[in-house]
């Protein structure tokens, strides 16, 4: 492995790329990466201990009600995530992509958006979907294999999940250019676009091209990178020598590293970034420094490549726990409130389960539907021949 000396650090106090750049002595001894150190530039408003700290640039006031709302969002999406994971284990879903640990990054970003803003997710953004008003049951089709996504992307302003790493970043740049060309940018009522991708994705050409396009066209685009420290089995230092948020400088726009396990800080930074964009000062890169607490997907076995000690360290930074502690300390919520949210989560999980097991199988003609906007005679003939074949087959069996 490479030694710390090999790492370039243009900004001395900027913090590690992710990780092994500057591990502590104890971590070296334990064979650990210093993933829990976000560095001096990390924007944080709520410590893992639930203590509210001030930040000179990105502070926000939240009411008790707002903070309770963020807490509730995070608890509910975590519950949806755990339930879907369990449904996969029971054979009800082909695969599930867990968001566990990334609730604050997603709820913070999602709640910073306005209804008129547009979002381009990758495939793990169940929390953003939640904030866009997409019922969790709408996420199941993709993972059960009944559909490629059932929500209306334009109505919800939430693009379909994109699985090919990085593709959506260019699509988002183009959408944001359109917002600009339409004159929908330039004041506080302007529109903005936000695009989600992972630490691994930052190596893809599409993402770099997205940075270039966004910059050259002053696009109202927030690049929101969830650095969850892993791209399947590869740690973030496999993708970059320097902290990811610092890449923005080379493209000519601001890059901010936020504590992605701090919902308040993520909300504050993302709201600021979207406002910059809607006012015509985009783009902005946000690196949400967080951790993938579960496997990459239900098909993955992380014990093959990472130590559980790392997980233990990050458990102490849980995004939900710190908000709960703060709510209690402030006397902004009591036991009855927390029980109420739990009960709500139970209902949501039960609904998800019931919906999932009752999902109808898609009909054979779905294979052929929607390939083109204007019909293709070749495909229509192929469809008719196949449906004919299928019906003959069914008839023969009875």
């Amino acid at each position, binding site marked *: 492995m490479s030694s710390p000396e090999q790492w370039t650090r243009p900004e001395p106090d900027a913090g590690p790329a992710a990780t092994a750049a500057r591990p502590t002595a104890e971590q070296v001894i334990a064979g650990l990466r210093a993933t829990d150190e976000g560095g001096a530039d990390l924007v944080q408003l709520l410590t893992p201990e639930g203590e509210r700290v001030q930040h000179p640039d990105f502070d926000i006031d939240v009411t008790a009600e707002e903070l309770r709302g963020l807490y509730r969002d995070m608890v509910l999406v975590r519950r949806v995530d755990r339930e879907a994971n369990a449904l996969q284990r029971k054979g009800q879903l082909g*695969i599930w992509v867990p968001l566990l640990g990334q609730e604050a990054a997603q709820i913070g970003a999602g709640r910073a958006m306005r209804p008129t803003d547009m979002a381009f997710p990758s495939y793990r953004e169940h929390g953003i979907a939640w904030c866009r008003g997409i019922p969790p049951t709408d996420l199941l089709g993709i993972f059960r*294999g009944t559909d490629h996504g059932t929500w209306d992307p334009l109505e919800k302003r939430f693009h379909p999940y994109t699985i*090919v790493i990085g593709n959506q970043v260019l699509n988002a740049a183009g959408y944001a250019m359109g917002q600009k060309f339409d004159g929908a940018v330039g004041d506080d009522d302007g529109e903005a676009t936000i695009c989600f991708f992972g630490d691994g994705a930052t190596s893809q*050409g599409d993402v770099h091209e997205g940075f270039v396009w966004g910059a050259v066209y002053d696009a109202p685009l927030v690049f929101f990178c969830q650095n969850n420290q892993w*791209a399947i089995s590869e740690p973030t230092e496999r993708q970059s020598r320097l902290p990811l948020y610092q890449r923005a400088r080379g493209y000519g726009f601001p890059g901010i590293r936020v504590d992605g396990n701090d919902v308040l800080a993520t909300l504050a930074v993302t709201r600021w970034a979207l406002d910059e964009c809607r006012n015509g000062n985009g783009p902005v890169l946000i690196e949400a420094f967080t951790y993938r607490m579960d496997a990459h997907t239900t098909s*993955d076995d992380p014990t093959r490549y990472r130590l559980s000690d790392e997980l233990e360290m990050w458990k102490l930074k849980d995004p939900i726990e710190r908000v709960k502690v703060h709510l209690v300390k402030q006397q902004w919520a009591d036991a009855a409130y927390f029980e109420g949210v739990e009960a709500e989560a139970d209902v949501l999980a039960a609904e998800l389960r019931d919906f999932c097991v009752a999902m109808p199988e898609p009909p054979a003609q779905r294979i052929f539907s929607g390939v083109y906007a204007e019909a293709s005679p070749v*495909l229509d003939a*192929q469809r008719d021949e196949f449906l004919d074949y299928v019906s003959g087959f069914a008839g023969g069996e009875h």
Partner: protein
Amino acid sequence: MAAPTMDRAGTGGASPTQTLTISKALNSGLRAAMEADPKVVVMGEDIGKLGGVFRITDGLQKDFGEQRVLDTPLAESGIIGTAVGLAIRGYRPVCEIQFDGFIFPGFDQIVSQVAKLHYRTQGRITLPMVIRVPFGGGIGAVEHHSESPESYFAHTAGLKVVSCSNPADAYWMIQQAIACEDPVLFFEPKRRYYEKGEVDTTARPGPLFASRVLRTGTAATLVAYGPMVRTCLDAAAAAAEDGTELEVIDLRTLSPLDLAPVHESVRRTGRLVVVSEAPSESSISSEIAAKVQQECFYSLQAPVLRVTGFDTPYPPSKLEEEFLPDLDRVLHAVDRSLAW
């Protein structure tokens, strides 16, 4: 440089024949190639510590080190483009593309550089590199994980394209592809990875770029490659129970095509059904149909029929049983051919 057909020393003492899965056979084949030639490097996403999402490279990084088994940054254009550079420098890179649907970010490098450098330099540069692609459907996966993009590459001059269908071929073909002086796209039937078969690691393999008759028959000829070979063998077994003897040919090489065994077979049977998961329009199956009607025009008793995936994007996985050719669709086509 090693010739595409190679001899191997005996394994000494123990029986040289082992029962391996396709996945393990590929792993052993890669290992043998790496042992034989220190210039062979393996590169891709998650192939080191994890051993690849299908574990094809399991244990290789541990034994050969991080400079010969590279966990690369996440970018397919990067993987293939740097492999080109390594090959120019004298290495023999073996790139892993994690899933078929993720080869496209690397498409530019494959078509513009991998395929053309030998031609552009008139042989001053050779690119002995392999691009491994787990391909095809049938595993209940989400989008982009079940595609059959082989025709794009067979359509591109300068590339060689092969596909294995069984463990013995997996073991030998990967080594032969690595030994080949030309760039080879190596398509692996991912849904068959865990099927077992006998592998004789000492037997001298036949040539890489050759089709092979796997079952002889008289009534009609089935031609397939990769995952559909098993489907055709099953169909032939089922037909035999009804007294119809089908000949089954494993194409093995998709570019250059080796159709001599197909022509010879069709001249005897008079009927041909081509089976492939890939959509049919402008595809390898079209190419076979065109060539066979040209070469066997007077022998054909029926038009060449094709059983393929449909000309749609790969559907949601709950529909893949309908989308993919199966035993019934193959036999239905055979019946149509016989009744023509």
